[in-house]
């Protein structure tokens, strides 16, 4: 249908009502994250926080305390319960559509391979527990879900349609922020080889292919269904990417292989030790002078206490077990331990791009010129 956003070779077939259902969920999400969410913030700022300050003779400054005073309020309960339901309805909508055509899509992925890039899978790879045992974002079956079929693209197909409901033009939006950040802060960067870690289906990866057309682009992930889907998607769009099934904590690439090592929203889906391993692996893989940029949601220290509370809920409500721990982690120290010189690594904010206007709901505490952005861990070898 003409009202469908961005399409490519792996886009599933959708009838009128399937398109309408996705559009409905997209609107429900937007309504929740704008209207309803703004109501919760206003309730906190205008009612709950002043009442607390009056009763206790001190301001509310701790996210655990915010949780205690907020969690039994009916409006907050409706907000959080609705957030969970909308997320579930989103996945149900996607799964119902993919379910009726998955075998055809598995076959299509094969047919789309025209040898532009490559796909290297490793069935013996031990998938780390932080991926294998958790259905992150409440996506049924998780990143490795194959629905019991051979050569399956199940999780990749489900994930792609889910992301499309985050907003129009949302595919690879985080990669766009990273590119804008790199071009602004490293204007002379002409990478010959780039590695994208934890690429899932390569939404951001393809943005790097567009932004750095002369670079040899590699992308790794542990989930085979996502890589199969991402490879087919890239081939259908004429983008040359070398996908391989590897754990970013320890890849098979030689030392000093890359000019740029990137990840987007990978960190908060790992674990403390895994993230330390990935930083060390990033350092090992960089050529001298190479740049590491890992983008994720901002650290708790960079957002106000209400946003800390709101995002802290993701741990419990959206199956993000490492979310809060990661956002309180000392990342500067972790980068130094990974091998980066202390004056060659830092935390920064990468601005949101225009495509993210409708999605943002984090109020930063003044570190970003526009007030919004992604937290980036930057290291130069």
């Amino acid at each position, binding site marked *: 249908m003409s009202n469908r956003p961005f399409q490519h070779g792996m886009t599933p077939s959708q009838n*009128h*009502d399937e398109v*309408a*259902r996705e*559009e*409905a*969920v997209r*609107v*429900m999400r937007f309504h929740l994250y704008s209207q309803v969410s703004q109501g919760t913030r206003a309730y906190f700022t205008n009612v709950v926080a002043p009442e607390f300050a009056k009763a206790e003779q001190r301001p509310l400054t701790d996210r655990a305390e915010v949780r205690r005073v907020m969690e039994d309020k009916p409006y907050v*309960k*409706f907000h*959080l*319960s*609705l957030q*969970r*339901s*909308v997320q*579930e*309805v989103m*996945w*149900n*909508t996607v*799964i*119902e559509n*993919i*379910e*009726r*055509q*998955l*075998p055809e899509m598995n076959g299509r992925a094969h047919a789309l391979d025209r040898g532009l890039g490559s796909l290297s899978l490793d069935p013996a790879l031990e998938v780390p527990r932080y991926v294998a*045992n*958790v*259905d992150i974002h*409440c*996506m*049924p*079956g*998780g990143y490795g*879900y194959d*629905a*019991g*079929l051979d050569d399956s693209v*199940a999780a990749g197909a*489900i994930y792609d349609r889910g992301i499309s409901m985050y907003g129009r033009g949302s595919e690879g939006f985080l990669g766009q922020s990273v590119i804008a950040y790199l071009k602004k802060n490293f204007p002379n960067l002409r990478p010959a080889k780039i590695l994208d870690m934890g690429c899932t289906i390569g939404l951001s990866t393809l943005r790097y292919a567009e932004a750095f057309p002369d670079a040899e682009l590699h992308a790794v992930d542990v989930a085979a269904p996502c890589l199969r889907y991402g490879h087919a998607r890239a081939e259908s769009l004429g983008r040359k990417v070398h996908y391989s099934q590897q754990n970013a904590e320890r890849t098979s690439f030689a030392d000093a292989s890359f000019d740029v090592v990137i990840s987007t929203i990978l960190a908060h889906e790992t674990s403390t030790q895994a993230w330390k391993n990935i930083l060390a692996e990033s350092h090992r893989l960089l050529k001298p002078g190479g740049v590491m940029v890992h983008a994720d949601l901002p650290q708790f220290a960079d957002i106000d206490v209400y946003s800390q509370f709101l995002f802290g809920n993701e741990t*419990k*409500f959206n*199956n993000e077990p490492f979310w809060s721990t990661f956002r309180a982690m000392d990342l500067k120290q972790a980068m130094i331990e990974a091998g980066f010189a202390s004056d060659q690594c830092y935390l920064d904010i990468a601005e949101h791009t225009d495509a993210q206007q409708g999605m943002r709901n984090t109020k930063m505490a003044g570190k970003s010129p526009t007030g919004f952005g992604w937290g980036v861990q930057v290291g130069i070898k």
Partner: protein
Amino acid sequence: MAASPKKLTRVARGKRPVLFGDGEGDMFLSMITALTTELMVMRDRLDTIERVAAAKGVILKSEIDTFAFDETALAERDAARKALADRVYYLLLQQAERHKAAEKKS
């Protein structure tokens, strides 16, 4: 008849948070959420039909009131109604799936 497609799981692993009582309120809200999206879909469909018909210069109202459905059409409508109920009562179906999985283990 074509073979029915392989069922994909609808259940995300991990405990579902409870906001209201023993979860009854959460279940009602989940149904309302699904129902609201279905109403939007239905509204879209009617809107599409009206616009397609109007573009062809067809006045639909009198025809709708007198239309005779054949058996195939009636069966299709029943299937669509069932699919709608599955979507609206998805959380009950999830629990049923969990209960069934628990039965297998014991």
